[in-house]
């Protein structure tokens, strides 16, 4: 019963670490998807007196994904009936060129001002509308959100790692007697610590399976996905192959490293 309780404590501590990591993964994915949405809907409008060399412009900065000219046809169509054809042609020829620029990613404030600075060097450009005010506040909010989540994630992982270490110390105390007895009969270190490693590995696997089951239930429930759909965010909460094996790897590595510390720290009783 006591041994079962100790198993449970380690499994629970590992479960907390793995859950924190996966929640962090989900938040990262959500932010990435949200950034993608923002990026898809974000563009810069450029006004130029003369036609721009679009190929050259596209090559000038890697952040530029695409640049297209906005046709004035729609606007002219609306005012067509109020002007004579001759005047309309005059208006058309005197209108500046309008362009919309799409970017490869959602830019930071610095990237945006860098881009603006290089565009301003082109003398024909008279206006650049980058919607920087709203862009900046959204970007800052995202960055703050990421930082807070990273900090919280770090705290959770650190606290649970300490819990695991404490749990392992209890294990060491429990297993010390058996390890000492085995040492008296000449058992090599790997044989003395085999039980400890076996338990660590079994608990790591069980903790990973517990996380898998938890996310299976969350997936089936569908509440989180519905919430995310409302924000137009489509992400995979838990990839049953990639995420499971990643978490299993983290879990095994954590418990094996900690068990190794215990074995190396073990001293024969004199």
């Amino acid at each position: 019963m006591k041994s079962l309780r100790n198993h449970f404590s380690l499994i629970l501590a590992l479960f907390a670490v793995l859950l924190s990591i996966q929640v962090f993964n989900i938040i990262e994915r959500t932010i990435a998807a949200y950034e993608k949405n923002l990026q898809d809907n974000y563009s810069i409008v450029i006004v130029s007196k003369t036609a721009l060399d679009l190929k050259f412009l596209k090559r000038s900065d890697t952040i530029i994904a695409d640049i297209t000219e906005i046709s004035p046809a729609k606007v002219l169509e609306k005012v067509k009936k109020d002007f004579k054809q001759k005047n309309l042609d005059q208006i058309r020829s005197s209108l500046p060129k309008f362009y919309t620029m799409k970017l490869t990613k959602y830019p930071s404030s610095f990237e945006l001002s860098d881009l603006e600075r290089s565009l301003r060097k082109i003398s024909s450009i008279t206006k650049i509308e980058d919607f920087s005010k709203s862009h900046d506040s959204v970007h800052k909010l995202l960055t703050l959100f990421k930082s807070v989540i990273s900090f919280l994630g770090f705290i959770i992982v650190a606290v649970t790692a300490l819990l695991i270490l404490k749990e392992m110390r209890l294990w060491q105390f429990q297993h010390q007697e058996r390890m000492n007895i085995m040492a008296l009969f000449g058992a090599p270190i790997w044989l003395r610590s085999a039980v400890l490693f076996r338990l660590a590995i079994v608990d790591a696997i069980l903790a990973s399976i517990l996380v898998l089951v938890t996310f299976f239930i969350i997936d089936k429930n569908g509440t989180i996905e519905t919430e995310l759909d409302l924000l137009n965010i489509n992400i995979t909460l838990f990839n049953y192959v990639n995420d499971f094996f990643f978490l299993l790897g983290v879990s095994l590595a954590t418990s094996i490293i900690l068990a190794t510390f215990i074995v190396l720290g073990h001293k024969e009783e004199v």
Partner: protein
Amino acid sequence: MDKVIVAKDLTLAYNEDEVIIKEASFSVDSGSFVFITGASGSGKSTLLKSLYGALDSKSGSLIVGGVELDKISSKKLDFLRRHIGIVFQDYKLVKEWTIEKNVMLPLIISGYAKDVSGMQVQKLLSHVKLNHQAGKYPLELSGGEQQRVAMARALAHNPILILADEPTGNLDDYSSQVIWNLLEGANNQLKTTIVVVTHHIPESLTIKYKHYHIEYGVVYEVS
């Protein structure tokens, strides 16, 4: 006659100021039965610890089974211990293992095949009259029975040397006699060298033995 243990000017201490054994010189012949006696705190158990390599000497030399213990690597010490059987006053059985597995421990460590180990364990448990208790756990047995298990474990791998630290210290007269008979039998029939640390030597003993006594850190032979 071959010497299993040779100590020369052996000094043992747990710390710099407190010397437990002072420049002891003695030897133990192969196949002999040796008693080490002394008052409580005289250093008997400390001396025994040094014999199985759990305590390094402060000075002098100690050779066990032809190996100088001070110069031995941990790997070689493990190998040497696979040829030594140890019995303690508090039995030192693994509580979460069955009696059968406890006795099997030295055989597992020495890499014996499972069927060979199984047969040897059955033979030994029957020798110590505990074959009906094989599946039980140490705490389910009496002190005398636990010590018989410890004896069976010490004999399991046919060691060249058995070291016993107060093996009857916690036992009643009957159980003590059983343990002495087992030690005598191992020495008589298997020619195993036996070194026993004890407060007093049983009068019932029928075999020839050598006797060392420790007083004020000095080890001397009692004739």
